[in-house]
């Protein structure tokens, strides 16, 4: 008797899909549900004994965002940890101290830390990150392991969101159609005196992923010649909304959403040739005082429950989940004009370019970019 007669075709299709998934989906292949539960229980019980969790997190959350985050985390695992969420201080300073603490063998100031992609590689290299074993099994339901913890940082960094570098503009001063379409166009004479740039290169270094180094440096020189001034983004967007500047070319998407919410005349647009996508990770610190709680938090923060809290209080979007309105909004904008989202983790080649910036040659090149943007 044919099998198709015993089972309807739809059921057969379902069985085939399940079998395929078992072999193709690493989480199913790697371990079973009881194993996941066992590992999770171990972390939860460890965290319960530790009794506290200290996180250095992304700016914008504040105490009013930190409290619900801690509450949701505790509720999710039936814990009652004392949750401290600190967002004070510049990223560079916090990472310097993290490296020094590691090198001096001191207990880590934080159990879990937020780490943007250009910082995490160095901290891993210096041994400041505690890896999580069998992490694929422990991720929240529906989270893609390949995206959340890409190969270069696998098991060490867990992405909970992104920042997308795009144009934020004052819609009262310039219309969408009058904005530059590509990064090259920012250097055109018609944009002279219309925009400001930030004094750091987080966005501009992405240019080498699309252009040759010389070509990109030339584009940056064009920006440097046309800009009104070089100021910090926070002061810049405030002045932009007051009517002093028309746009900031490599701003962050969260400014747009934040300004829009406050009723400011803000607009958002992307360049056709280059839309830098940065990953925001959480890591667990080596020598953390509460390592189990730190690991549990880093893993949990990748899920939709945490995404919504991050988005609500700090406008931090996550393009990997539809639960993120900010992420979906940016993707929509990108798709509308067929632009390119590029990240350091797209390919090995891209990652090697990020690593190249750590060499003497790379440092010198980055300094040239900084100088090109700064010089009036």
């Amino acid at each position: 008797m044919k099998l198709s007669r015993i089972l309807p075709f739809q059921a057969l299709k379902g069985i085939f899909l399940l079998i395929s998934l078992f072999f193709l989906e690493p989480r199913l292949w790697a371990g079973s549900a009881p194993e996941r539960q066992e590992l999770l229980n171990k972390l939860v019980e460890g965290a319960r004994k530790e009794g506290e969790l200290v996180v250095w997190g992304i700016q914008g959350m504040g105490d009013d965002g930190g409290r619900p985050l801690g509450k949701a985390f505790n509720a999710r695992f039936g814990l009652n940890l004392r949750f401290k969420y600190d967002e004070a201080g510049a990223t560079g300073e916090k990472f310097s101290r993290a490296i020094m603490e590691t090198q001096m063998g001191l207990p880590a100031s934080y159990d879990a830390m937020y780490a943007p992609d250009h910082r995490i590689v160095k901290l891993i290299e210096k041994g400041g990150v505690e890896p999580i074993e069998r992490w694929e099994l422990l991720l929240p339901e529906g989270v893609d392991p390949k995206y959340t913890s890409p190969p270069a940082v696998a098991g060490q960094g867990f992405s909970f969101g992104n920042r997308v570098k795009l144009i934020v503009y004052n819609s009262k001063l310039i219309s969408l159609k009058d904005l530059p379409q590509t990064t090259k166009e920012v250097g055109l004479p018609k944009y002279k005196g219309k925009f400001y740039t930030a004094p750091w290169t987080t966005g501009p270094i992405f240019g080498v992923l699309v252009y040759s180094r010389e070509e990109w440096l030339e584009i940056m020189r064009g920006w440097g010649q046309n800009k009104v001034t070089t100021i910090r983004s926070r002061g810049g967007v405030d002045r932009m909304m007051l009517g002093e500047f028309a746009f900031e070319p490599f701003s962050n998407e969260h400014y747009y959403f934040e300004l829009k919410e406050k009723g400011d005349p803000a607009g958002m647009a992307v360049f056709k040739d280059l839309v830098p996508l940065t990953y925001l990770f959480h890591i667990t610190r080596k020598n953390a005082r509460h390592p189990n709680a730190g690991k549990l938090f880093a893993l949990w923060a990748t899920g939709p429950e945490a995404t919504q809290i991050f988005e609500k209080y700090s406008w931090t979007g996550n393009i990997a989940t539809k639960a993120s309105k900010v992420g979906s909004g940016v993707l929509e904008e990108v798709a509308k004009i067929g632009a390119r989202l590029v990240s350091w983790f797209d390919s090995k080649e891209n990652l090697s370019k990020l690593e190249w910036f750590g060499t003497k040659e790379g440092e010198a090149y980055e300094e040239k970019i900084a100088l090109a943007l700064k010089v009036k």
Partner: protein
Amino acid sequence: MDRVETIKLSWEETWSLWKDRVAGGLVLPLFFALVACGVIVLLLLVILWMTFVPGLPTEPGFDLSNYTQVLGDRLLPTVGNTVLVGFGSTAFALFWSVSMAWLIHRTDMPWKPLLMAAIAVSVLIPGFMKAMGWILLLSPKIGLINLALMNLLGLEDAPLGIYNRFGIIFVQGLMLTPTMFFLISGPMRSMDPALEESSEVTGVNKWKTQFYVTLPLMWPAIFSGAIYIFMTAVSIYEVPALLVGFGKYPLLSTAIFLNTAGTEQATKLPQYGMAGVYGLLITIPSIVALFFYLRLIKQSHRYAVVTGRGYRPKLFPLGRLKYLGSLFVLIFVILAVILPFSVLLWASLLPSLKMPSREALSYVTLEYYSRIGQIVGADVIRNTVLLMAVAPLAVLFLALMISWIVVRSRLWGRGAIDTITMLPHAIPGIGFAFALVIVAMLTARWFPWIPLYGTIWVIILANVVNRLAYATRVTNAALLQVSQELEDAAAICGVGKLRAIRRIMVPLITPSLLFAGVWTTMLVFREVSMALMLSNPGNIVFSVHVWTRWQSGAMSEAAAMGVVMVTTLGVIFLIAQSVFRGRLYGIQGL
């Protein structure tokens, strides 16, 4: 053996000898002065060492790369701009502060307490808010004053500009005037009118007397204050960062910021070594100025105005001009207090900063005030109270000990002690804070039982070291004005030095100490850059909290907190004034 026995003293004799030595007035002050200087020198050595370290201090490497990079990094224009901004801001602040201190303390001008309280609270308005306020008023594109002038005069271009070095001088000058005003308030108030009366008796008119007698007597206080103001002016980064940014007019302060907190190269870690080199460059002019200052106070007897002979402070009658004097101070209060405070208030009522308009009025809300209670945790309040209580007391005690050695003793090396005490002010706080991070980390490793790293005590220590320069300027000036003859008289009566300090000197300079205490409390409360660098989850203070909220985009909350802070301290200041009946500013007559 016999010899040993002959010099063996009984416990009572030893105590008596020790008491005599302590009563000699130097052992105790010298001990504390040396401890303070030891800590400062240690931190300076860490900074100096860092200038030779290319990466982090925990990593190998020792070379001159930081120096070569700084020398190649547009150094000349950077130094030139810094010197211009430093001198310009100091001159601007001197003009206002000396004039206002004279008007308020030496004349019969009306409304003094209110105007003084207004000057005092202006220091609490954050620098970035003051800069934003002036952008709203003087920006060539959106500035209300410029727009009004263009409409009025039919101009096409804005007549006034703020995005240049003179804009920085203007805003920083206004910001620094209150500090200078209070630095010279004590000496100005304690001026012995007998000297002026003698001048008048010889036929010199009142105005010439003020110029040729009063002003020269104030010279040490003005000079030491000017050095302090210069050092502060060249270290401020938030005003130039907002007004001219980082490219057009490079300054040493913005270069330090770019190499530390705001690392311009994304993939690089902060370059503390380079920041240290820039810090050393800032120190050079300060040390030159200090040299002249120390030469000046060598002739301290020439400036002693509080002597054993009694005097009664006398006010200079302005006659019909007294309201003009009040108007002069009021203009400053409008420029430096009312306008920036209005911006702070305006910002606290809106979701984001907007130009005043009918549309903007529709957004006005008190929501951000109601949220203050929720967003400031108990930890933050506890840390802030501890900082405000302990740091000023420690600063005052150490300042008095140091000034005693510097001004009252003839000890070899006292000039070095004064110079060392001033150095923390010459080097940007962020450099000291980083040095403290390293020292605290080493302490945590070698002496883990000392609660320094990551605690509120490390922030307290940073503030004590950093504020000593200011407090010693006040105590030096106060001691300089009390004549040696008072101590000599006490000695003739058989009173030991220590007792003389306690019973004669301290009461005489109590108003100056009170003022230094109040002022240090306010400066410590406001300080953010060091506290930010040293911050850990367990030691967050109010200023760090406000700064972080502003950086996170919550300007309205930060502004609401600022308004509450300024109003509360303004009221406290007014109450303190009435309780102390004006004794906050200077030495009272005998």
